[in-house]
């Protein structure tokens, strides 16, 4: 059914799909219509002209023949009986007409007709017969004519013709209706030739028009097509591409406008690129420039800190605080530099095939001490099999550290569950805490730079506010995804999914986005959970 419909639509698709086809098709249809009308008119006029000529010549011929007929009849009547003489005279008339096959003669006698042998008498229309026969008893000797179809008795095809009829015989004598039948076979042939000429000329003209239309369409379409290609190349980033400009016509102006647009675009894009590059360089430069004075401060602070036990309380505390905040400052600087590397597209991936479970175990072990200070229990759920995948250990380790530290910080002393799983295409880790959580609408905002769920809340574990943004970039660099789920007071869950083989697509994540432990009251959440599996 669909296939049939598609087949039906194919011509319409082709028609609207090609400008050349439309131009050529329209021209062809128009040309054929004009040619048909013109040809018809031409043929009508030619036929009328030829017929009129034939009628005139037929009249002339008929009246001459009639004169001969009448004079012969007058002469022969003197010599013998009326019947004999009419038979002889009529025979002579038939014989004359037969010379060159110019016309056929039919003399209507009271008992029978005398006529040219092969002529069918029905060739003389009865209406003409009546008209002529009415004139027998008067002195009317006018010629009457009618067009007819000349039929033959020997099986030859009938042809159109003209019948000229009159009553022969002078007053006082017996009068006979005489008909001269002029077949128009010659004229018919002439008309046929004219028709042939018309058709062949018409075909030649139509073909010529198609070719011209094709050329015109091409002449218009080629620049349009080249404009389209230029636009496509521009869109694909080849900003230096330009259209060739030829002449000064509309198409040339189109090319000029296109080129102008291209150069303006190129200029703008270059400007933006330059601006963005400058900004990235600025961030990198600032991070670098700050390093030398920071080193001095760092050295000084550490020297002071080494001796802080011997300081009075005020100086003691100051030295402690100064050192602690310097750590944060350093971390922030390092993160800024890392972000600027991502922004500049200069981040490099060092891929190795490794076991993700192993890395997760290492990172979780390293954070047990920190978790303990917060009273947070880290629960690790590992699959039975290993989770081999291509990843950059430094980057994924950093992502995990970040998610774990976040969960510990916001976990409100409740357990944090870490689950690892793998499927055919991907490996995944979820980190679930049961802390304050965040609003569902914020699940994208958490990855924003320097974003805080609660602006009033301080960062107690020395986070820089860039951690999740960097984690997102790290995961993206692997071709994976990092998603967040959260509800106020019901905790949060972060999920990292990376493809097992770098560069291959992830069919689905082995772990659900929404925590499994949630009371599944809402069918919506359930549906999402299932779809994500």
């Amino acid at each position, binding site marked *: 059914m669909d296939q049939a419909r598609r087949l039906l639509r194919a011509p319409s698709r082709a028609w609207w799909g090609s400008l050349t086809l439309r131009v050529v098709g329209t021209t062809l249809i128009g040309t054929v219509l004009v040619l048909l009308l013109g040809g018809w008119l031409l043929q009508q006029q030619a036929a009328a002209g030829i017929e009129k000529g034939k009628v005139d010549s037929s009249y002339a011929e008929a009246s001459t023949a009639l004169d001969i007929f009448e004079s012969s009849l007058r002469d022969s009547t003197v010599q013998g009986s009326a019947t004999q003489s009419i038979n002889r005279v009529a025979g002579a008339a038939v014989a004359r007409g037969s010379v060159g096959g110019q016309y056929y003669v039919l003399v209507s006698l009271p008992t029978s007709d005398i006529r040219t042998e092969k002529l069918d008498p029905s060739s003389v229309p009865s209406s003409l017969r009546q008209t002529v026969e009415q004139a027998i008893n008067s002195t009317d000797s006018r010629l009457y004519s009618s067009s007819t179809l000349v039929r033959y008795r020997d099986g030859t095809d009938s042809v159109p013709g003209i019948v000229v009829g009159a009553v022969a015989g002078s007053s006082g004598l017996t009068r006979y209706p005489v008909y001269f039948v002029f077949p128009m076979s010659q004229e018919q042939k002439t008309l046929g030739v004219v028709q042939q000429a018309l058709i062949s000329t018409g075909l030649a003209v139509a073909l010529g028009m198609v070719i011209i239309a094709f050329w015109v369409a091409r002449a218009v379409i080629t620049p349009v097509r080249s404009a389209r290609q230029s636009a496509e190349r521009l869109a694909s980033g080849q900003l230096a591409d330009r259209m060739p400009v030829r002449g000064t016509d509309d198409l040339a102006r189109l090319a000029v406008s296109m080129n102008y647009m291209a150069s303006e675009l190129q200029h703008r894009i270059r400007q933006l690129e330059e601006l963005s590059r400058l900004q990235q360089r600025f961030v990198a430069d600032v991070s*670098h*420039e700050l*390093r*030398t*004075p*920071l*080193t*001095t*401060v*760092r*050295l*000084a602070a*550490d*020297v002071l800190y*080494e001796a802080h036990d011997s300081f009075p309380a005020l100086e003691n505390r100051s030295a402690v605080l100064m050192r602690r905040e310097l750590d944060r400052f*350093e971390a922030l600087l390092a993160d800024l*530099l890392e972000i600027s*590397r991502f922004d500049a597209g200069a981040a490099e991936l060092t891929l190795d095939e490794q076991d993700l479970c192993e890395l997760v175990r290492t990172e979780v072990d390293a954070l047990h001490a920190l978790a303990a200070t917060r009273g947070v229990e880290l629960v690790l759920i590992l699959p039975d099999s290993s989770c081999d995948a291509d990843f950059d250990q430094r980057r994924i380790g950093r992502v995990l550290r970040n998610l774990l530290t976040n969960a510990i910080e916001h976990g409100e002393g409740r357990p944090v569950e870490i689950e690892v799983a793998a499927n055919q295409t991907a490996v995944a880790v979820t980190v679930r805490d049961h802390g304050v959580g965040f609003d569902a609408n914020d699940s994208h905002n958490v990855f924003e730079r320097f974003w805080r769920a609660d602006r009033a809340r301080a960062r107690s574990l020395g986070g820089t506010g860039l951690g999740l943004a960097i984690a997102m970039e790290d995961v993206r660099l692997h071709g994976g995804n990092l998603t967040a789920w959260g509800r106020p007071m019901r905790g949060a869950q972060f999920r990292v999914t990376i493809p097992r083989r770098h560069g291959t697509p992830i069919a689905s994540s082995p772990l659900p986005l929404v925590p499994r432990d949630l009371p599944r009251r809402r069918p919506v959440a359930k549906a999402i959970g299932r779809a994500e599996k």
Partner: protein
Amino acid sequence: MSETPNGRRILIIDDDASLAEMLQLVLRQEGFETTWCASGDTALEVFRSAQFDLVLLDLMLPGLDGVAVCRRIRADSGVPIVMLTAKSDTGDVVDGLEAGADDYIPKPFKPRELVARVWTRLRRPPAESETDMIRVGDVTIDVSAHEVKRGSDPIALTPLEFDLLLALARRPHQVFTREKLLEQVWGYRHAADTRLVNVHIQRLRSKIEQDPERPELVLTVRGIGYKAGGVAGVK
């Protein structure tokens, strides 16, 4: 406060006066003698004016830049050179290492890190092997004399290059990962910059191999690391 002088002399080449002063304070507290030079142009002159045990070199210097200073000092001497750099992730580090620097410390760093780096470069690894002479191919290593010879021709190696060759030669047939070499030769406990190993292996090969393009003494084991080739112990 200051510890007793340990008799070691360190040259600090850094244009930042505050940092240089702070570096000197930290190092003097450790018992080092320090000399400060603020520009690359005079660095060589100062270096030649006295006997230094180690050079701390900032890569960003006015006048002659750090890499060029490093190359000139290295042309003169095998003294350990430790670079200070703010741009550890750029090509600057590799340029510096290729110019002959032994190690680098990325800014910012803590006093402990600085002191640890400096001491690693000054202390010789303990002579653990009973063999005094080790032969690697046609090259002999005299462990106690810190000499390397091909036949009777001495080959001039920096202390670091000597340590690197010795580490490989002492355990023939063992393949060393870059991380293992970083730990043994540079004293890094945790994963560090493997570019250090790559660059110094190249420098070592260029000195001891007949044809550095086709090494026979220091072999690359693809995907793992390096090992010594043709080692034989000699009593």
